């Protein structure tokens, strides 16, 4: 380490995986881009690390009308964009309308917002097509970060990929796909950054990221792309006070999808047997040394409405009974083609571990035939019903149970327990249950305790159907050198870059 050249500036170097191809909130959809946007922009609301909803560019929590179809948001009056333009209701409306018009992820709004109004200079009003409790959490989504109407006047209907003019604590002073420079914004309305600026760099693989952190080349490592062994090594270094490690909310779920409209998984007993045969604790231990906690619900436990235990735990005797009922075992082994994403090392290890566990626990009943396939190909063929069983993961675009349940369970056209068109079909399970879609819509209308009960009921139905088998949670982690304070996460799983500070 002594051979590394000395630093030429006080700026901190933050490394992550993933080249940034667009910085436009209407286009950005990668971990790195959203993390960067969270430092150079603000949202109306943000979630604190303990899940509390806090106003950011809004000056107070939203007022929701009696019928739930109008949301009124008071805005701060002391905010300016990086180009000096004043932030007001018109600026926010400009950004929201722009996102709804050209946002590549505008489907996450799901047609809920029908009109954006500006009754007063610092008052924003959203008209909704239906009452939506999850909308407030949607307003914390980084994709809804406002942009300066002045700077984006020529980009109202098209993306501006390599520049960004927002309201965040940093302004972007240099952008390349592999490196970005952020300088503190002197007129920032909130608490100023605790560091002299940041250089964000991109390294293309886990070993390079790990090596850069170990050799001290970078100050902070943010990544969801660190291989398990290296994640464990970093974890151990943190335990030995060689690094500092921070954990964010676990918002990524790993799960298995079972194709439920054709044999053998058309039979719910076989699906349940699969769910019961999965030893999550063993898999978590073997694959991630326990760093990916076992998961028994579709909604991450960090979010309200997740009971965390809807799916049954490992029970090999019950699995055998169900398989016997379905006509397997005693010489008739059910061999399941199990697909995993070959470019995701943890998935491959999970598949291998489960295969071996089944060889040990149910050798006469159930076997997995593994098939590795590159992610892009898997996602392309998922909705075609190509994979009888496939390991996937999902991170909701905003921290709300709706963002996890609807993408897996909602269904537009169904026949009995088979979803013919809708999210459940796109997700590759083709499974639904009578009344499930209506229950999903109802849960988004209800509030408070009633909503939590509705969500629990939905998870219970999904667990009974067993078309999805939750496997594990992926916890967001970040590491810093010991000369820095431990990084802090917000409730959306993003590191608060402005809070990074030296402690020498």
């Amino acid at each position, binding site marked *: *380490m*002594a*051979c*590394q*050249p000395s*630093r*030429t*500036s006080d*700026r901190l*170097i933050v*490394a992550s995986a993933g*080249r940034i*191809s*667009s910085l436009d909130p209407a*286009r950005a*959809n990668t971990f790195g881009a959203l993390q960067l946007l969270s430092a150079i922009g603000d949202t109306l609301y943000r979630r604190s690390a303990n899940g509390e909803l806090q106003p950011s560019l809004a000056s107070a929590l939203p007022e929701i009308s009696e019928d739930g179809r109008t949301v009124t948001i008071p805005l701060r009056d002391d905010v300016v964009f990086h180009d000096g333009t004043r932030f007001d209701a018109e600026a926010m409306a400009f950004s929201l309308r722009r996102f709804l018009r050209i946002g*590549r*992820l*505008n*489907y996450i709004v799901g047609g809920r917002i029908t009109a954006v109004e500006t009754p007063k200079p610092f008052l924003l009003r959203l008209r909704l097509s239906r009452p939506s409790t999850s909308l407030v959490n949607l307003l914390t989504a980084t994709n809804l970060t406002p942009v300066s109407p002045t700077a984006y006047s020529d980009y109202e209907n098209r*993306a501006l*990929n390599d520049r960004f003019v927002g309201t965040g604590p940093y302004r972007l002073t*240099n952008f390349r*796909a*592999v*490196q970005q*420079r952020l300088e503190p914004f002197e007129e920032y309305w909130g608490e100023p950054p605790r560091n002299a600026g940041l*250089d964000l*760099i*991109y*390294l*293309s*693989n886990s*070993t*390079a990221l*790990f*090596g*850069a952190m*170990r*050799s*001290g*080349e*970078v100050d902070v490592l943010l990544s969801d792309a660190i291989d398990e062994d290296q994640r464990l090594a970093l974890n151990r270094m943190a335990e030995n006070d060689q690094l500092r490690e921070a954990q964010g909310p676990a918002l990524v779920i790993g799960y298995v999808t079972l194709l439920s409209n054709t044999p053998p998984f058309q039979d719910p007993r076989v699906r349940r047997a699969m769910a019961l045969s999965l030893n999550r604790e063993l898999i978590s231990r073997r694959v991630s040394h326990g760093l990916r906690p076992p998961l028994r619900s579709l909604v991450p436990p960090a979010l309200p409405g997740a009971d965390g235990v809807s799916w049954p735990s490992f029970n090999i005797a019950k699995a055998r009974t169900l398989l016997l009922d379905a006509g397997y075992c005693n010489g008739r082994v059910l061999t399941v083609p199990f697909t995993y994403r070959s*470019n995701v090392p943890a998935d491959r290890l999970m598949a291998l571990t489960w295969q071996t566990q089944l060889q040990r626990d149910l050798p006469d009943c159930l076997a997995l035939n593994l098939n590795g396939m*590159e*992610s*892009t*190909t898997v*996602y*392309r*063929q*998922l*909705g075609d019903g190509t994979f009888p069983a496939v390991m996937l993961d999902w991170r909701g675009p905003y921290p709300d149970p709706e963002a996890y349940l609807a*993408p897996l369970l909602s269904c537009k056209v169904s026949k009995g327990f088979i979803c013919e068109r809708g*999210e459940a079909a*796109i*997700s590759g399970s083709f499974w639904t249950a009578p009344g499930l879609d209506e229950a999903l819509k109802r849960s988004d209308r209800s509030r408070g305790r009633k909503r939590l009960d509705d969500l629990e009921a939905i998870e219970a139905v999904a667990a009974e159907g067993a078309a999805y088998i939750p496997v594990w949670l992926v916890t967001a982690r970040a590491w810093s050198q010991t000369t820095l304070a431990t990084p802090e996460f917000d409730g959306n799983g993003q590191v608060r870059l402005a809070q990074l500070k030296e402690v020498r």
Partner: protein
Amino acid sequence: MSRGRELLRYVSTRLALAPVMLWLISSLVFLLLRVAPGDPVDAVLGSRAPEAVKAELRAQLGLDQSLGKQYFDFLWGLVHGDLGMALIDEKPVTEIISRALPASLELSVTALVVAAVVGLSVGFTAIARSEGRLDLAGRFYGIGTYALPPFWVAMLAQLLFAVMLGWLPVGGRFPPGMLPPEGSGFLIADSLFSGNWQALQGSLRHLVLPACTLGLLLSGVFTNALRLNLNRTLRSDYVEAARSRGLNETQVVLRHALPNALLPVLTIAGITVASLIGGALLIEVTFSWPGIALRLQESINQRDYPVVQGIVVVVASLVVLVSVAVDLLVALLDPRVRY
């Protein structure tokens, strides 16, 4: 026909055939990409985007057109020097390539120099003690470096020199805390011309590990080529004749044998540099070197058709140009060559 005219005819034929070859290659890439499973729209929108949104983007990108129409548009653009717009970055493909190509060329040329210097030195030393221990070591070196998996060697080099010893950076092309000098994209040249010595030092430090790793892995080819050719040349009649005229062994080797033995090596060097431009994939990925090969890998994963097509066409063009140039050089240097 005079030799000069023969050569001119040969080069003209090669150059005339180049567009045909490029057309075949680009057509093949166009077709293979469309046949391959995976959808660029999924890469842009995510797999869960509603079908209507996907259809809209597909239409916007022209992917809803018939394959024939897409192919015709692609060829039409190609003929007019337009490689299209990248689906993911929404930038002209030519701009993306012009930013990534200097990085690859800088790496390739440096690696080639390392490969040539090390490979030829080892090969020459080995043949100097023919059938001795040095020769055996040279043979092992030639085969060993060729057989070692590049990603494994690259990772070992990374772990040893960057992580454990901390002598060199783990990856990237420029120190993260500095901004690269503006200019041609060749950072070493840009740093030199702008007199920015700190940038030059930073660029060189980042170049050493990937270039040496790649160069050493390629050097075995040079070692073997020189060993075999020099061995054969040293046994040829004209070398024996030189010896019989009383020339000492150094003169025989350096003046008579080596120039002839180096001619096939020149051809190999040409092929190597051409393949390096697009083929240093594993090195670029391992060392996060932002070159054309890393870009190609990312674009294949994202099914960014125009970028993949553009990179393949540009790399193929460079391969054709380099191979013609090498043929020309060999013909100029070797009067025995006939076309």
